[in-house]
């Protein structure tokens, strides 16, 4: 089990970053501490943390742990993912499909392309299926009618085709390059 002891500075550097202040919770609930790869500390309610299948199984394996290190996850996407999961918990308590749909749509609409792309590996690593579905659909909607160049920069893909190889592929489906949005 990796712990924070290998880098002693971390324990002192705890930046309290709570994406949304919990105002309505009067009674104390169990909190779980998550630590991002860039050493940000997040205190989240247990119910929210249990939405992350990866964190959940971590706790099942070692229940006495108080801090869960997330070596593959940086702070910004993590805070957005936590924000999403907090809302999902509310919908779990009070199911309202229409509201949930609306929230999910707004959640992705206001995010930048980069935010979406950065959240995908996090949602995938933490195994948050609902969020991953929402993100995948949002990304698909954004790239559907875009040019190859646009989508390469969207995902940060390096083109490893030679000019000839790429030209041959473009010829094979020339019609698929017609009627594409301006970048």
């Amino acid at each position, binding site marked *: 089990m990796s712990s924070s002891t290998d880098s002693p500075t971390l324990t002192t550097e705890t930046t309290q970053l709570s994406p949304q202040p919990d105002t309505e919770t009067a009674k104390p609930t169990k909190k779980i501490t998550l630590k991002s790869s860039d050493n940000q500390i997040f205190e989240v309610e247990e119910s929210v943390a249990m939405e992350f299948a990866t964190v959940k199984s971590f706790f099942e394996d070692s229940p006495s742990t108080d801090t869960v290190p997330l070596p593959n996850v940086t702070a910004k996407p993590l805070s957005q993912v936590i924000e999403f999961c907090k809302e999902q918990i509310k919908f779990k308590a009070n199911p309202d499909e229409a509201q949930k749909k609306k929230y999910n749509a707004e959640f992705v609409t206001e995010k930048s392309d980069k935010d979406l792309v*950065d959240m995908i590996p996090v949602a995938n690593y933490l195994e948050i299926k609902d969020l991953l579905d929402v993100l*995948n659909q949002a990304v*698909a909607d954004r790239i559907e009618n875009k*040019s*190859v160049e646009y989508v390469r920069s969207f995902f*940060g893909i390096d083109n490893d085709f030679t000019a000839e190889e790429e030209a041959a*592929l473009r010829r094979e489906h020339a019609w*698929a*390059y017609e009627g594409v949005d301006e970048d």
Partner: protein
Amino acid sequence: MTESAKKNRVPEDVMMDILIALPIKSILRFRCLSKSWNSLITDKDFINAYLAQAKPLLLLRRWQDRQELYSLHLDNESLDTSLQFQNLPFRSEAGCFDIIGSCNGVVCLSDIDHQGRTKSLILWNPTIRKHLYLPLPKLCGPHSATWGFGFDLSSDDYRVVRVVRQVSSKREFPMEFQVFSLKRRRWERINYSPTLGPFCVAPEACKNSGYCNQVAFNGILHWLVYREENDNRRHSFVLSFDLSNDKFGEIMLPECLARVDIFWMVISELDDSLAALFYRRDAKSVDVWFMREYGVRNSWDRLYRIQVDGFTRAMVFRKNGEILMTKHGSDEVVSCNPRTQASRNFGNLGLRRCDHAEYFVQSLSLLNESNGIVPRGKKKKQKGNVKLNSRSLGEEQVMEPGGGAGS
């Protein structure tokens, strides 16, 4: 880009989920993104995954301005047009293709002239705009033949089947069974059980046309055929061919249908079993029969009798319980609720002169197939290309049924 950002790339299995949410046009364009995207898109697992989630649409074929027009429609109240396949990349010498069938988003077409000669045979995935000319089997002169097309899951292969008998007034020729495998790219002759005896594959009235009364499901092809019995009466039945083991079989029709000329019948599929439709000219109605237990003769049941003025050529059991039919003569599309007898005619929505309807999915099938087969009819015209000529001759040799060209 920093190293950590690079590490946080979208994982491949997630890329696949994103791609699946896209229309095929975008997917084909994104082959160009990078080598890894291209190999993901052309991977068999991805092609299968896309196929598995594809929404069934209705494929219609109709006539407009002396051209055949293929279009996809949503399976909704008004059969909204989803896509029209324009400017077909091939032409029929006979004037119009016969649709042998479709499967996994691939349509199999044959071009048969008025003398019953087969001019070309095509596999076409209209969604990715790709078509392959298949080599023609032996005996493509004026013959009485029926065709079938399907996909065999066990060998992961598309197969075209032809049941043919040479027509001659001088003597009786035996039936021949020919099977084409896309993987092997050649025709082979199949032995069939002699207990089937001689039979006819097309009604008298359609002897030289590309008559095709077939339905394929669960890897089994089915044709409506008949044999002449000793008492000179006709006995109609369903001939089946199992693509997984190359076995032919006979499926009995209910007594009252067995005596009907197959010209007045259509077979179709309902709930993984056979359905048969019989047009009663005198009563201007159709009887819809259903084989409740596949292969069990006693389980044939008459489900409905529907008042329809006009013989129907195609029959699709829709998800909403209605039956879609294309009427012969007027060639109009009619969707009928068999319980209320209410029917809607889509002729006024531009769906006139329609002679074919079936469920169809948009897929990436055939994406990886090479286009190496030269159509027979074009050989002579391509004088300049010696390499292609010699190659297509090679195809003909391996086509010989039973020939040892593969060894």
